[in-house]
């Protein structure tokens, strides 16, 4: 489970998060992303999460988001990607 201090899932953090996710995926457990500290998410971030979700599906795993704030949910909903991420 990733509880690390992710504050934003955005263009500025995307590459760092990508390698972090890849590492975390090795564990084979259910992928839990704690969104408690996330204050910013943009299209780059959403696309990254979508790619993550796809990769997990491939391995018959899934992603679970916890502590998603209303503001973040709203951001994701604007682009209607909430459904694909299992947040809809």
């Amino acid at each position, binding site marked *: 489970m990733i509880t690390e201090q992710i504050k934003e899932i955005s*263009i500025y953090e995307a590459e760092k998060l990508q390698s972090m996710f890849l590492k975390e995926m090795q564990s084979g457990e259910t992928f839990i992303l704690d969104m408690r500290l996330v204050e910013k998410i*943009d*299209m780059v971030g959403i*696309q990254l999460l*979508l*790619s993550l979700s*796809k*990769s997990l599906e491939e391995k018959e795993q899934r992603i679970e988001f916890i502590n998603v704030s209303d503001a973040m949910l709203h951001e994701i909903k*604007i682009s209607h990607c909430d459904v*694909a991420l299992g947040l809809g």
Partner: protein
Amino acid sequence: MEEEVEIFLEDCEDQLGLMEGALVSIQDSGVDADSIGTIFRAMHTIKGSAGMFGYDNIVKFAHAGENLLDAAREGLIEVNEEMVDLFLQCKDYLEHLIEVEIREEEMESSQKSLGENLVKALISYMPGEKPLEKSEDLGQIKEPSMSEEEILRWHISIRFHKDFFTTGMSIHSIFNFLNKIGKVIINQPILYHIPLLEALNPLHPYIGFEILFEADLPYEEIEEVFEFIIDDVDLMIFEHTDEESLSQLIASRKEDLLSQTLLDAQFYTEIETVDVSEEKTEEIKKSLPEVNKPEELEILENEKTESKTVTKSTGAPKVSSSLRVDATKIDLLINYMSEIVIANSKIITLSEELDNSELDEASSRMRELLEVVREGIMDIRMVQVGDSFAKFRRIVNDTAKKIGKNVEFIITGGETELDKTVVERISDPLVHMLRNSIDHGIEEPSDRIKAGKSSKGRVDLRAYTDSGTIVIEIEDDGKGLDKNRILAKAIENGLISSTATLSDAEIYKLIFEAGLSTAEKVSDISGRGVGMDVVRRNIEDLRGSIDITSALGKGSKITIRLPLTLASIDGFLVQVGHTKYIIPLESIQECIELTQEELEGMKGNEFINLRGDMLPLMDVRVVLNEEKSESARKNIVIVRFGEKIVGLLVDELLGEHQTVIKPLGDAFVNVTGISGGSILGSGEVALIFDIARLIEYKI
């Protein structure tokens, strides 16, 4: 400031300019549908761009204005004088609001309430509306009014170019904005291009969107939403019922799953698969980024020709450009161009030395072509002066109103083209001179009637081209300049000695000296005696000249002559001592040889007898401290600036030279008579004469 914000600001400035121009034209010649349309479009565009950037306060305010303008456009309400005043106030407020928003500052509370009151006032004019009592309603944006049967549904399909994310533009704000101007029924993200995490380049966009959008808006207005990202996306917008476009979309996207996705997302209940051959797909793909382009161009052309006639009569602004180019890019091109011209003149010199006729021919052809390209590039910088002139209309009206004078302001030649930099730099001087004309030139209405004139004064602003220069005239039918008063004042202020004998033109020109104002009462419009000297300096800095003629009781005319462009001139190359100089061709009258006879005839005086007239001579070698040259022959280049004629004594005439002007450097700012340098084919630097200053220096 970020580039996008800068573009936004420029765009707003353009739109506000158009708005103002149209409003003032209404003030002058009454309400017409074109002007209302212009104001509406400007308001609408500002709202649209502001929405893109998430400047909600601007959107709210512009929306209120747009609603009323829409009603006016539809003929639901009558536009009266009060409303025009209100719109002018709104324009000013909007200008301020945009500034504040861009700087991300808080609006001061007095301004805030002004804004609220303006919105209230706007709403109170709405058909069937009573003045609102609560301002809280103002914030809410009403959906654009649409009647049930007319609601249009649009299919919008977006894919992003590789660099989209790094441009910094946000697709979120587009979605938000779409929701503001209409209703997004379905927004289906297209996900099948998103790779697995290992293969993902997080900064590349793989996602796409298919949107079903409901709005009672024409195609152009929906496309406008994407204006700021249009170069960075593949965009298709078509009516939901347009099956042909749908087939094109499906064919061009080359996404096997697209039609199924669209069906699954309930965009359509069925999709007829039209067989589109590979060839046709390519064709469609090619045409994709240019949807509606030819039509757009046509519209622009139409508006342009239409505006020419409008400009002539009322000075109303025209739609000026279809492409926004960073000025530095053009400067760069001009720079390279001058390098090429220089390199080519080297080739020409060499080919002459080699005496190879084929090479000669080729290099001459090259020179011709370069000239065409150079002119083409220069032409990009040229803008019509009308846009800039139209802004003056309001200043004139306001000034006249303020001091209780009645003035008719007539602009002619708005379509005359001039280098954009020059246009910007003459704007302030022109404003100053126009204010002067109204304040000092035009008499009080009662005085005018006494003098047997119509109570309404007339100020003309004219532009036209004349032999390679542009001429701008400001003429009024006011009381004219009083020679004796100017003279008395100039003597009193020590500008001239009391025994000086001056021609009329010289006396009038004194008004451009610092510290000379003959206005009896100093108003806050003008009349402090500073300004006209600054005006002259500004014009001269542009290598221009300024002259004034006047007739007491009848009016005055100020004539400004400016070069068409700052970047290049046709020059004439001469040698003095060891240095080569360039004289702007436009100022040369003729070249003559100084004969021994004439030389003797001078008897030490600094003038010769030229066909019966006295021609003052200036020995460039002496004036500029050049070393003595060996050349036995002396040549005189006769130059004219305004009314003044002087013969420049030089060693050798080297012929015409296409001169690209380069600044000499800050170290030389105080050198009089030289305005810049130019690099010759040999690599040598030639100095360019500033004839106006040189003559001034001589006299």
